[in-house]
C-alpha cells in the first residue's frame, strides 16, 4: 500500500502570501513556496524518514515545496517509459530515483537510501491524488494563483479569467 500525503502548514502559507505568489516566477514557486511536510511510504517503508533532530526520534515527514514536488513527480511518471529510469529532485535535500520495469516501479530515496517497490499504476495514482490535493489547497487558500500563466502546465486546467 502506498501512502503519499502532505500536512497543511498555515504558517508557511501566510509567509508565502506576503510575497505575491500570483506574480512570482513559476520556477521560484516550484522551488521555494508552499513548503509543507510530506510523507511517502510504500508497504511500510518510509522513504522520507530521517534521523534528525535526534537519532531516536524518527521523522517520516519531509518539508518540501508541495507544488513543485507534486507536479515534478507527476511529470516524471508521465514521461518515464517501461524499463527506464528517471530522477525527481527533492528541493533542498536530495533526489528520488525511479526505475520502471514493466508494470512495477522502484523508488529509491537519497534521504535515507531506502528502496520500495509497487505497481506503477498504484504510485501514479498516489501522485495524481497528491497533485489534486495540492491544487485544491491552492484554489482554496491562494485563489489568485489560478490566474498565473503557468497554472495550466501544473494542473492541466484552463486559466481562470
Amino acid at each position, binding site marked *: 500500500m502506498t501512502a503519499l500525503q502532505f500536512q497543511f502548514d498555515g504558517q508557511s502559507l501566510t509567509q508565502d502570501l506576503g510575497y505575491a505568489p500570483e506574480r512570482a*516566477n513559476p*520556477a521560484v514557486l516550484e*522551488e*521555494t513556496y508552499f*513548503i509543507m511536510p510530506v510523507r511517502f511510504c510504500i508497504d511500510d517503508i518510509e522513504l522520507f524518514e530521517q534521523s534528525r533532530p535526534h537519532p531516536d526520534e524518527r521523522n517520516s515527514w519531509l518539508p518540501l515545496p508541495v507544488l513543485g514536488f507534486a507536479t515534478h513527480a507527476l511529470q516524471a511518471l508521465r514521461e518515464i517509459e517501461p524499463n527506464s529510469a528517471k530522477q525527481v529532485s527533492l*528541493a*533542498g*535535500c536530495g533526489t528520488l*530515483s525511479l526505475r*520502471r520495469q514493466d508494470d512495477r516501479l522502484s523508488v529509491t530515496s537519497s534521504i535515507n537510501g531506502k528502496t520500495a517497490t509497487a505497481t506503477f499504476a498504484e504510485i501514479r495514482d498516489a501522485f495524481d491524488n497528491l497533485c489534486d490535493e495540492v491544487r485544491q489547497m491552492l484554489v482554496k487558500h491562494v485563489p489568485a494563483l489560478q490566474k498565473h500563466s503557468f497554472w495550466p502546465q501544473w494542473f492541466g486546467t484552463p486559466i481562470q479569467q
Partner: protein
Amino acid sequence: MNGPPCAAAFEERPGTHLAGRALAAKSGAPWRVEGASRVLDANLGRAIGTDAAGNAASGLRVVTDSSGNVITSYPIHFEYPTAKAP
C-alpha cells in the same frame, strides 16, 4: 523570496565560482527539466558543505528558470544519475 527548504550549509560562500565549477563539471551533460525549473546536479570532487542531514556534501545543485536565472543553489550528497534500468 523564501530560502531553500533545507538545513544544508556551504563551507564557503556560494558565489559564482562554485556555480561556474558546477557548470564546468557538467559541461555537455543534460539538465533535468522539471516543470518551470531546470536542475543541475554536479560533483565538485570535495566537500563544499553539509547536506540537510548534516553529512559532508560534495555535490552542488543549481536550479534555474527556463531563461537561466538562478533560483537557488545548495550542497547535496552527490549521486550519479542512473541512465537506465538494471
